[in-house]
């Protein structure tokens, strides 16, 4: 099919459907990665692929027939084979198209464009509360683009290209319409899928087409942030039209293929449209000038787009307006607290109490509306209380006296609740946990009428020496047994900087072997002074 397609036949329709299915096989994984809406499954691409597979199979197996007959086949099979929300909507679009093409042996661009408008109508009707920023918005954009192109008297391939372009414009707007997309840094997956579908139709129809919408860079652009760390070896997205082109599309491809990737060569009505990602746009244009006259030249540095995306995402406000500031005495504890939702960690502990300024700084630097501070040590309570005096209502304190209490408080936090409600919950929950630590006596001391010599291992609760022993395992067992009740289920050990992971694991295993009915879990704490911080729940 070259140039103008005045009449679209059943055969053309069949090629379009098969082409779209093949394109979808390539693209569906990329679409899966976009999925966050409406009931996110991470499989919009797969669902649309399976829906299209049913359609492609039915159309392939159908006897020869007119476009009306085949589009009806397509619609029926889509309705039976639809998977997921996006598949259901796609099936409705097929239904509309079939309705628009009813009884036709062949159809003009204008008729197909109108049929697609039926499709959009059916899709909107299928959804009880249509939401903009989804596949529906993109479908509407496609229909409008097609309508304009038909009005301008273009051939079918150009109508389809224009329609895709118009849909692409709408797709890029979807994050503005739907905050959930914006916060995930993606465009709508269903909308992308619909464009891939049309691009595949174009490919099937034109033979030589690969779709701009299905290409690497465009999919990439829409991926989540972690996935955008690619090296752009061909950073210049270069597009232009060649008029009065002296060579055919296949030759253009051969000439340019070595100069970059994502090459798309589309033969339109009397023009050749070229799209390529290259590191040498000058060379590309220079070659192209020998084939005809160049128009609508556009060169973008895709690295800029990347940067903008990063900047944009970096500026997104935190979801939570309550930020937790938690004091940690070691890197391991800091990491655990962060994973559990602490927004800011201040390093400090038993012998390195952070000054009041650090808390004030953290609040001033932060972007939260309100703050909850977890001191996680008795010695830090005073500094924190001082900070609250200076900062007022923006700051609340959950007076956690040790690390286990701090962690319990973090578990209880719920970003959706008001701050005072949270404080109440966190205080209640932190009081349920029992905490102890194992360390070494730095000087002789008297414990309940007997002397504990310097250098002895001691078990401490609330800064009070409760047990002492010759080695770490004995101390660990003694202090644990001292605290353990029958209803306790889980003992968490956070080992300090004074132990290697292997040593700590051996001690933990020994403890577990000596106790029954409780689980012993070991985590790296990295705190100084204490071999183990122990929590019992």
């Amino acid at each position: 099919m070259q140039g103008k397609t005045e009449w679209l036949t059943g055969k053309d329709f069949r090629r379009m459907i098969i082409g779209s299915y093949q394109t979808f096989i390539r693209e569906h994984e990329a679409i899966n990665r976009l999925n966050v809406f409406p009931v996110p499954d991470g499989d919009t691409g797969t669902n649309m692929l399976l829906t299209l597979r049913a359609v492609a199979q039915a159309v392939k197996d159908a006897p020869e027939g007119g476009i009306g007959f085949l589009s009806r086949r397509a619609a029926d099979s889509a309705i039976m084979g639809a998977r997921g929300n996006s598949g259901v909507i796609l099936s409705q679009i097929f239904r509309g198209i079939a309705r628009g093409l009813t009884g036709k042996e062949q159809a003009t661009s204008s008729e197909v464009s109108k049929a697609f408008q039926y499709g959009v109508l059916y899709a909107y009707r299928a959804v009880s509360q249509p939401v903009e920023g989804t596949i529906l918005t993109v479908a509407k954009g496609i229909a409008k683009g097609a309508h304009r192109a038909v009005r301008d008297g273009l051939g079918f391939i150009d109508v389809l290209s224009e329609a895709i372009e118009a849909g692409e414009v709408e797709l890029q707007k979807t994050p503005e319409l739907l905050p959930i997309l914006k916060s995930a840094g993606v465009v709508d997956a269903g909308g992308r899928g619909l464009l891939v579908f049309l691009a595949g139709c174009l490919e099937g129809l034109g033979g030589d087409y690969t779709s701009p919408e299905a290409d690497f860079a465009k999919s990439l652009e829409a991926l989540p942030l972690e996935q955008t760390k690619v090296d752009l070896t061909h950073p210049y997205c270069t597009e232009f039209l060649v008029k009065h082109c002296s060579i055919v599309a296949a030759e253009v491809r051969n000439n340019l293929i070595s100069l970059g990737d994502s090459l798309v060569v589309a033969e339109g009505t009397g023009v050749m449209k070229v799209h390529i990602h290259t590191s040498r746009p000058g060379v590309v244009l220079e070659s192209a000038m020998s084939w005809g006259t160049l128009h609508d030249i556009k060169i973008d540095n895709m690295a800029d787009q990347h940067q903008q995306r990063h900047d944009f995402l970096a500026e997104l406000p935190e979801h939570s307006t309550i930020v937790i500031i938690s004091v940690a005495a070691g890197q391991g504890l800091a990491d655990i607290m962060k994973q559990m939702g602490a927004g800011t960690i201040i390093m400090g502990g038993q012998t390195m109490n952070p000054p009041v300024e650090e808390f004030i700084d953290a609040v001033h630097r932060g972007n939260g509306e309100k703050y909850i501070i977890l001191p996680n040590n008795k010695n830090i309570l005073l500094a924190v209380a001082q900070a609250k005096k200076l900062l007022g209502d923006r700051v609340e304190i959950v007076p956690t006296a040790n690390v286990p209490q701090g962690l319990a408080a973090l578990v209880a936090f719920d970003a959706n609740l008001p701050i005072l409600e949270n404080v109440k919950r966190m205080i209640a929950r932190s009081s349920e946990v029992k905490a102890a630590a194992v360390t070494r006596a730095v000087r002789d001391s008297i414990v309940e009428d007997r002397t504990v010599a310097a250098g002895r291992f001691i078990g401490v609760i609330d800064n009070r020496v409760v047990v002492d022993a010759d080695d770490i395992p004995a101390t660990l067992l003694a202090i644990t047994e001292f605290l353990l009740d029958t209803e306790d289920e889980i003992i968490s050990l956070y080992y300090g900087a004074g132990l290697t992971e292997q040593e700590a694991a051996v001690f933990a295993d020994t403890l577990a072997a000596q106790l029954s009915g409780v689980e012993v879990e070991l985590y790296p704490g990295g705190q100084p002074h204490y071999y183990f911080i122990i929590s019992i729940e």
Partner: protein
Amino acid sequence: MPTIHIVVDSIGQVPSEMLAMHQNLHIVSLKVRVGDQEWQENEISTKKLFEICQDRKQHPTTSQPAPGDFITVCKPLIEAGKEIIIIGVSGGVSGTVEGARSVAKMLDKEHIHVLDSGTASVGMVAMAKAALEMVSAGSTAKEIVSRIEALAKATHTFLIPDTLEYLYKGGRIGGAAALFGSILQIRPLLHLVEGKVAILDKVRTKQRAVNRMLDELQKYQSLEYIGVAHIDVPEEGAKLAARIKEMYPDTPIVSAGIGAVLGAHLGPGLLGLVFQEKI
């Protein structure tokens, strides 16, 4: 043959004897998929599903019924002049109800009524039972619809997944929420709020989560039934049921079935409750 037919999706896990007893009760199945292989919900057990996933190192995905699946059931009924009430799994977690509504529009929206159960499992079965009883008693579709809407409002759903991995990978819970649980054995207590999964509380250890769930249950005193669900942990399920029996000696305690599709989103080791206040 009654003039009103009831259609329930497979998430309800309608018992086969109930299906056999009612000619006017129909099931439309959701689908579960691992890689290239797909099953109707009742073609595969949760246990088998998780085995396959583990073998293939693939995560299961699910899909609402195709519009055609509803059409296959509903079209002959509509053509025979029947009225249909479709009871679907909570619209907050599945597109099933939405899909059923689009089919109602395609076929006959006057005579197909689509109801969002706001719950799953035995909660849907209870609604279907109530509907069937009302059909036998000669109630109109309109009366049945309003009754079931009231039941949906009075039904509560609580869940304790062993891990949030399945809900997270299936997209039924946000990323931030799923972070918890991966560390320090934190167990979330979840409930359905307006049909959507929400975190009610987070505690360490499953036992505490169960205690917390029973605290929530005790806020309701007058209950029609209490459904106890588990996924492949029958002993834990039985233990939970026994505790509830002690707390509510006069309330029917029923087993709440969970099929492969729901299972794919909750993961093995789940404990849950579905119960309905008396109205």
